[in-house]
């Protein structure tokens, strides 16, 4: 259960949003909409605890995420604009390390098959620097395959650079997660039909 | 009444305004007295002749250079911990004065070194650590200057200030830890001072003069910083509207 109360965020002289409040119970997906620069990324980073808000609180199951600290981090995955991939490592290596970092230990074969499921078997052993824009994004997103146990997913423009199939596949994954009682917060400018109901939040 | 209300720039700005003239005045008076004692009352030193009179500038400057750094680090730390805007501003306001004091200590010391040690500069522990102090001040200021977002600048420079604080005890005790050219503490609370009382009084008066000066200047700078940071705030607008 994610609760946001009276959240406001300022960047430099601009107030992006003020006094924002909403709650997300399990099995709900929130889709943050808004023009470029309306503050979607800023909001998501605050929800993930990466940035601080000018005022207001973010609570997870009743307690402030600041106080929860690492406990909250074991409940959450964040995929931002940046892919967090190392150019010199192969897709498999990147996936393994990314998961290890977020405290999820997986075997190499597991990574391999997860990549294969996402249609990336051919490039599983290429250094990421050689991959195409969309392939990189997809490698970064493959992490989600192992994050079913984490209730809260925060995804910033996950569909950007993905081709049709990849979009569909990701949408299905999100659908499954929400179906299993997970919570998803995402932004996207693309008109993808997610195949499940989303609560909407419009920033101006 | 709660003291916290003073931690708001809006409240503190006028208070600082009223305090500045007093400290400035005190600084002026004390400096005159101190220099008078130092250059006319105090006797000529039997071994160093007149050169020793530099002490009336050198020692106060040297002490302030270290003390101001500690105060700066303290406020920066408070700002980092409780992110109270005002304390970070205080830290920024203190830095240039501290750097100036350090520079004066180095400069006068070097001038003093020529007659007494026969050289302007030796790479001895105290001199070196004092030089490091200057670098730390410069680093603190350029880091703060290099970051546009004030909130981030405060925090980042605070971390640096705290890490650098380790250098101050090194400066102070360097004379005891290593056998340096530089002489050890001749003034201490535990034992009787090992210098002529007139010299001592003169020096102490100058020390207080430097204190007053530092406080006055820092407060003035603080007021500028407050205005600069809060220029968008309502109260500043009103102040200039009215």
């Amino acid at each position: 259960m994610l609760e946001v109360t009276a959240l406001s965020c300022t960047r430099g002289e601009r107030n992006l949003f003020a006094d924002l409040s909403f709650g997300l119970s399990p099995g709900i997906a929130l889709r943050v909409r808004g023009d470029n620069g309306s503050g979607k990324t800023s909001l998501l980073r605050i929800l993930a605890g990466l940035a601080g808000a000018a005022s207001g609180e973010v609570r997870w199951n009743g307690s402030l995420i600041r106080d929860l600290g690492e406990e909250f981090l074991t409940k959450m995955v964040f995929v931002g604009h940046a892919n967090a991939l190392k150019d010199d490592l192969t897709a498999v290596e990147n996936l393994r390390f990314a998961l290890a970092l977020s405290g999820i230990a997986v075997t190499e074969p597991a990574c391999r098959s997860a990549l294969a499921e996402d249609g990336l078997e051919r490039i599983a052993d290429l250094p990421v620097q050689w991959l195409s824009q969309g392939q990189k994004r997809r490698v970064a997103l493959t992490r989600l395959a192992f994050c079913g146990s984490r209730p809260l997913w925060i995804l910033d423009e996950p569909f950007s650079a993905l081709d049709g199939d990849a979009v569909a596949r990701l949408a299905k994954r999100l659908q499954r997660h929400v179906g299993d009682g997970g919570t998803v917060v995402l932004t996207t400018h693309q008109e993808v039909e997610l195949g499940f109901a989303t609560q909407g939040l419009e920033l101006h | 009444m709660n003291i916290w209300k003073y931690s708001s720039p809006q409240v503190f700005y006028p208070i600082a305004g009223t305090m500045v003239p007093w400290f400035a005045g005190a600084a002026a008076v004390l400096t005159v007295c101190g220099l008078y004692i130092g250059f006319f009352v105090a006797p000529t030193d039997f071994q160093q002749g007149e050169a020793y009179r530099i002490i009336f500038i050198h020692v106060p400057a040297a002490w302030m250079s270290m003390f101001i750094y500690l105060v700066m680090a303290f406020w920066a730390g408070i700002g980092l911990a409780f992110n109270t805007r005002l304390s970070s501003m205080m830290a920024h306001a203190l830095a240039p004065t501290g750097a100036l004091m350090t520079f004066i200590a180095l400069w006068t010391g070097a001038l003093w070194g020529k007659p007494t040690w026969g050289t302007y500069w030796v790479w001895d522990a105290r001199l070196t650590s004092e030089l490091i102090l200057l670098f730390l001040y410069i680093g603190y200021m350029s880091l703060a200057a290099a970051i546009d977002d004030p909130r981030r600048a405060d925090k980042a420079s605070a971390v640096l200030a705290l890490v650098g604080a380790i250098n101050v005890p090194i400066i102070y005790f360097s004379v005891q830890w290593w056998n340096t050219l530089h002489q050890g503490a001749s003034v201490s609370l535990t034992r009787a001072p090992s210098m002529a009382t007139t010299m001592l009084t003169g020096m102490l008066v100058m020390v207080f003069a430097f204190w007053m000066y530092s406080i006055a200047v820092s407060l003035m700078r603080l007021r500028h910083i407050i205005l600069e940071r809060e220029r968008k705030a309502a109260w500043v607008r009103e102040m200039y509207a009215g």
Partner: protein
Amino acid sequence: MNAGLIRTCAALAARDVMIALRRRADVLTTFFFFVIAVSLFPLGVGPEPERLQEIAPGVVWVAALLASMLALARLFATDFADGTLEQMALAPQPLSVLVLTKVAAHWLTTGLPLVVISPVLGLQLGLPGDALQVLVWSLLIGTPVLSLIGSVGAALTLGVRGGGALTALLVLPLYIPVLIFGAGAVTAVQAGLGIAGQFSLLGAILMLALATTPWATAAAVRIALE
């Protein structure tokens, strides 16, 4: 929990070392920089053996110091640019420990090689056997301190105007004590004096750095990500 922490750190260290080995560029440049910087001195200063021998400790130490400082540029910068640092901050492990791990890996790939090659360079400058030993030991204790202190500067300057040069400005002053005691130990043994003092001080500094810098660096990283 604790096992998880160890696993995470192991993975992180393994990753950094692997990357360093993949792009040999970074490791080799630091290393060669050190070698060349030292070898330059006989050229810049002139070949008189006794003079070289006199300045040898200082030269080697300053070169090591500058080399490890050059390497700092790559400690966090790429991770910051590609979003990995973000993920580190989001890892359910104390960031200070993760940072410490990164610094350790960084030292393994940039600091240790310097220590290993240093006796050769010392010889080249005509240091006698006992001085060589002391040189190696002093570097072995000293270079980790350089990496630790440096990490604070590197983190503070992330994404900041001023880049590597600003880092240098911030950390070099803090390096000076290490330099004084490190080089001092070697000169002392050359002069036939005791070196216990310098080494105990170096040790003390290392402990202090280990105890404090990880927190400072972690704080700086969080600030940079804000």
